[in-house]
């Protein structure tokens, strides 16, 4: 088969796999790791387990943090949310700390029942690092492979090289 045609078929397969991986990752992050702001939780009352990002408001943290039992208010830009936390003793729970509370929203009690607390994810840095790390390599490989295919075509056309 034509060397250049094989080259385009190979790269078509690579692009299809890469696109599939990107779609799968985006879907996973949207479904499992999407976060709500306190205002969205209060107004939309989302069902099931969700993640809420906000800052622990000063003077609201009460209870026994070291025992994993505390209440506090999580503040967003224009709204705040009362949170009742019960779970493993958290490392990051302190006033003025921006964090992610994972749990369920009780619309009747107007309290967010958190079971876990995590640090704010930096997806921008992760995405940036993968794009910076992989895109130049893919472009370099594409350019080199295409050039090699063209050179073989040129050699065959000029009868410089006979295939075994």
């Amino acid at each position, binding site marked *: 088969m034509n060397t250049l045609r094989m080259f385009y078929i190979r790269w078509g397969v*690579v692009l299809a*796999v890469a696109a599939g*991986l990107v779609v*799968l*990752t985006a879907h*996973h992050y949207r479904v499992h790791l999407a976060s709500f702001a306190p205002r969205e939780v209060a107004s939309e009352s989302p069902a099931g387990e969700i993640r809420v990002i906000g800052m622990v408001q000063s003077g609201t943290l009460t209870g026994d943090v070291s025992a994993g039992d505390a209440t506090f208010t999580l503040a967003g830009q224009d709204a705040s949310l009362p949170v009742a936390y019960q779970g493993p003793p958290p490392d990051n729970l302190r006033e003025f700390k921006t964090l992610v509370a994972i749990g369920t929203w009780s619309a009747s009690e107007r309290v967010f029942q958190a079971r876990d607390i*995590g*640090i*704010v*994810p*930096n*997806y921008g*840095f*992760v995405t*940036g*690092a*993968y794009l*910076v*790390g*992989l895109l*130049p*390599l893919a472009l*370099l*490989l594409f350019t*080199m*492979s295409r*050039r*090699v295919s063209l*050179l*073989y075509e*040129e*050699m065959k056309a*000029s009868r*410089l*090289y*006979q295939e*075994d």
Partner: protein
Amino acid sequence: MTIHRVIRHVQRYQGWVGGGAALCLTVGLYLGLLGSPPDYYQGEVVRIMYIHVPLAHTALLGYTVLAGGSAWYLWKRDPIIDNMCHAVAALSACFTALALLTGMIWGKPTWDTWWTWDARLTSFTVLLLILLGYLMVRTVVDDLDKAARYGAVLAILGFVDLPIIHFSVEWWRTLHQPQSISMRGVSIASGLLAPLVVMSVGMSLLFSYMLMIRTQLLYLNRLLDAKKGRLLHQFHMSKADS
């Protein structure tokens, strides 16, 4: 005209190496981005490790191949080895630069700075400068044999930077974390280790595949130039005869 036996071997095996690289990188990216837990302290940012560390390992592996190949070239003077060294230098420079860039992106959220003159970062930058110096020698010196010899000597001399890079985190108190995998054992959670190993294998295979492609590129370019030069010479000779 027949083609060099090394290039014939490359043609035969490059599909397997490329396929292996694609498979490992696909599995590694899946594990790194979706299948592994966030780190206890760093959170999601730890996923940068699965691209940064394999790039850095592969860059060092590439330079080791360059130094070994350069010694081999000085001994055997085989042009195909020179083609391979020239190809590996360009790819190692690319991998080194990308390792530095991804490290900078990782440094900002973890160290709160894009750059610091830490021993590991500085010695790695020196490696990039050595590789760029090698490529400059290959470009600036017109005589191909001289360029190959000067480049080989520079590559062998530059090899002294590799143990400095490796031990820099132990010899100096640095901001960069110590080795997670060493002769003393593995100090990394098992959930984070699997994607790191798979990505490292995948990146090494990708480097090998790119090396096979680039070696062919340089070889074919030189072959075509030589043939065109001969044809041009014959053309001028026939003109002179007539």
